[in-house]
């Protein structure tokens, strides 16, 4: 049972984590990002579409559709995120409103497109793309894991390195604290922020595709269950730092899988599973109330940056 809790917990925590890293990139550069939910959904949509399409060419046994799906989820999430960047960085829109609009737009657009594509390309009237269950790898000690978990671990190490060790990361964090000083140091604040939002979209797309595989084995509008908001909670709880956010994500994941396991063990009806799903959210609420006070958001977060303004 413990092994099950760990395996299930990880498969939920890691996508959450990679999305939280995306959020940290955006917010550390100074752009409020409530749009993670929409990014992950849109990324999952493009990824699932490409996967289903490639099943027709390579067959369901090939691993090409799987990895191509993830690649296109990253690209799709990134492209969708550029819209948020365009509104917030170029046109100085209110970042909270832009984020909410992104989320609504993603739900509407992907539901519509899924139905239309199913009808015209695959001759079905379903509102989902069936992916099938992902294969699993066996890793010593931990047990069976999805291949995307390995990818996430590698990508998150790279993202940590970029954020805290490279020139770009240093400039990005400066933009989120005091864009005027970054500008005075010869840094193009607009470019740094646009790339940061793009990265958040790419990573969220990767997370969305992971959820599509692990939680439901398909892409449908059910993917908009609030995972994006949960990862925002994780990054706030992690004080906008990557490592502490990992702990928050792990906690959320294990709370969820342990809850499921307990329900299963007690032989309660599966409807109780819905109750368990709220556990991470309740936990978030409690933790933020008690521990969130000393957390400090990036100083310039959400502020429109105008070069001329002094």
């Amino acid at each position: 049972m413990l092994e099950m809790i760990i395996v299930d917990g990880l498969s939920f925590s890691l996508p959450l984590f990679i999305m939280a890293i995306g959020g940290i990139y955006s917010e550390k550069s100074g752009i409020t990002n409530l749009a993670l939910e929409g990014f992950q959904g849109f990324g999952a949509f493009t990824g699932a579409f490409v996967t289903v399409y490639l099943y027709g060419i390579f067959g369901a046994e090939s691993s090409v559709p799987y990895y191509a799906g993830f690649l296109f989820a990253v690209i799709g999430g990134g492209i969708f995120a550029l819209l948020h960047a365009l509104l917030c960085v170029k046109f100085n829109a209110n970042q909270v409103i832009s984020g909410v609009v992104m989320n609504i737009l993603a739900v509407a657009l992907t539901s519509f497109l899924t139905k239309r594509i199913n009808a015209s390309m695959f001759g079905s009237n379903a509102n989902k793309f069936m992916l099938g269950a992902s294969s699993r790898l066996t890793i010593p000690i931990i047990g069976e894991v999805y291949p995307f978990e390995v990818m996430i671990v590698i990508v998150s190490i790279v993202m940590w390195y970029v954020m805290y060790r490279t020139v770009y990361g240093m400039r990005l964090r400066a933009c989120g604290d005091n864009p005027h000083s970054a500008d005075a140091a010869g840094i193009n604040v607009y470019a740094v922020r646009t790339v940061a939002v793009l990265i958040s979209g790419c990573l969220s797309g990767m997370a969305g595709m992971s959820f599509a595989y692990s939680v439901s084995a398909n892409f449908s509008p059910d993917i908009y269950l609030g995972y994006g908001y949960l990862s925002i909670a994780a990054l706030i709880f992690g004080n906008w730092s990557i490592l502490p956010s990992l702990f928050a994500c792990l906690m959320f994941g294990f709370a969820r899988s342990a809850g499921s396991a307990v329900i299963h063990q007690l032989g309660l009806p599966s409807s109780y599973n819905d109750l368990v799903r709220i556990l991470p959210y309740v936990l978030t609420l409690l933790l933020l109330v008690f521990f969130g006070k000393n957390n400090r958001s990036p100083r310039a977060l959400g502020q429109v940056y105008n070069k001329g303004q002094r």
Partner: protein
Amino acid sequence: MAENIVEFRHITKRFPGIVANDDVSLSVKEGEIFAVLGENGAGKSTLVSMLFGMYEPDEGEIYVRGRLEHINSPRYAGSIGIGMVHQHFRLVSNYTVAENIVLGLEPVSKIFGIFPYVNIKKANHDIAELSERYGLKVNPTDVIENLNVATQQRVEILKMLYREAEILIFDEPTAVLTPQEIESFLKIVKGLRDGGKTIILITHKLREIKAVADRCAIMNRGKLIDVLDVETSSTDDMARMMVGRDVSFKTERKPAKFGDVILDVENLTVRNRAGFEAVKSVSFQIHAGEVFAVAGVSGNGQNELADSIAGLVMPSGGTVKLNGHDITRSSVREHLTAGVAYIPEDRHNVGLVLDFTLRDNFPLRQYYTGKFSSNGIISKSEFESYGEKLAEAYDIRSGQGGSTITREMSGGNQQKAIIARELDMKTPLIIFMQPTRGLDAGAVMNIHRHITAERDRGAAVLLISLDLDEIMDCADTIAVIYNGSISKISPASEISTDEIGLYMMGVKTA
């Protein structure tokens, strides 16, 4: 004879409704300290900002080292060896000193020869060396937000030196420093000149110009009045040229006649938003007819002290009595009816509703009284006549009279509007928090006259200011606040500026 390193030729710059620079031509020689003197709005910042690429001139040309340059961005200015320290520092608050200095020009090394990373060790080492070489003491690994203003200023200077700037521009560099810090800043500037740098100093403080500058350009209303050799000119001449008329910087004051105790503060303790005790067990009394001034370096609890006496913040301990009546835990309105007027530091966010008209801003403290409204309905005509009366009495100038949106008014007139509103209530206690920050000499004198007039009327005045000259000019009693405690209270006639400075920095304690 030294070469001209910078030449402005016939520079004109217009902003909507105003000519900021009108056909200004002047040249700066290599290796000199060149001061630009003028009141607020005289155009000195605009002129120098064009050299740093923040604006481009509408007409005229700028030559640097004999070459015509179109400086269209600070980045370009940096590339031709021009650096600038702004009045408000441009530092990343949660970065270390070294990280701030190297930002944008980071030393990069590679792990295994492939993965590039910012070599913070090398940065720390380089900055320590740089700081040593120029005698600018900083610790490369300190985090900016923990440092005082003077140290942050040294970091800004090192930032320019790290970029190998040869022409260093300072915009009002001493506005926020204590007398001792100003002394050491001036020494630094001289040292930089002796090291071969060219310094351009924007200021309105004559004393500093006299102390360090070689030559001085004087500007008034966008025009260049003259360029003087500092050594052979008197400060009186400079002042006259700056203001355009004879001025006496001393406000005429009758000796104070103290009356009864109006404000009695006992063991007042105030926590700031982060929960720290920003004001620690402070006690003092202010009499009728007394200007009680609190001096101190910014961030030593002044804001919390003023806000708690005005009732905006609830103290965590101690008592505040007005005319013997306890107002420690009263609401803002109860403070008002008890008789506390407050001219806050932040005139934009606390003092005014910026998007209201001038006439709607005047009755903000009294709109609910029978004079301005009945049964919750506002009397427009009363607003109008009151607005006209105050604008007239306090000489508040605005584009469209009472219907002017206050956001569009100049800082000086905004401040006059707040002062008119607060003083017209004729309260027994008036709190002035940094009343002249960012205002020009004329407006400053006007406000100082008001302070003296209120005192002579018999009001108790609490004046909190970072500007020591202001305190010396206005105060009857001087207190110094350091680290949340009042370290010294003395009659103004018995304490010198230097001594106050020592208390301000905590070198001397009571």
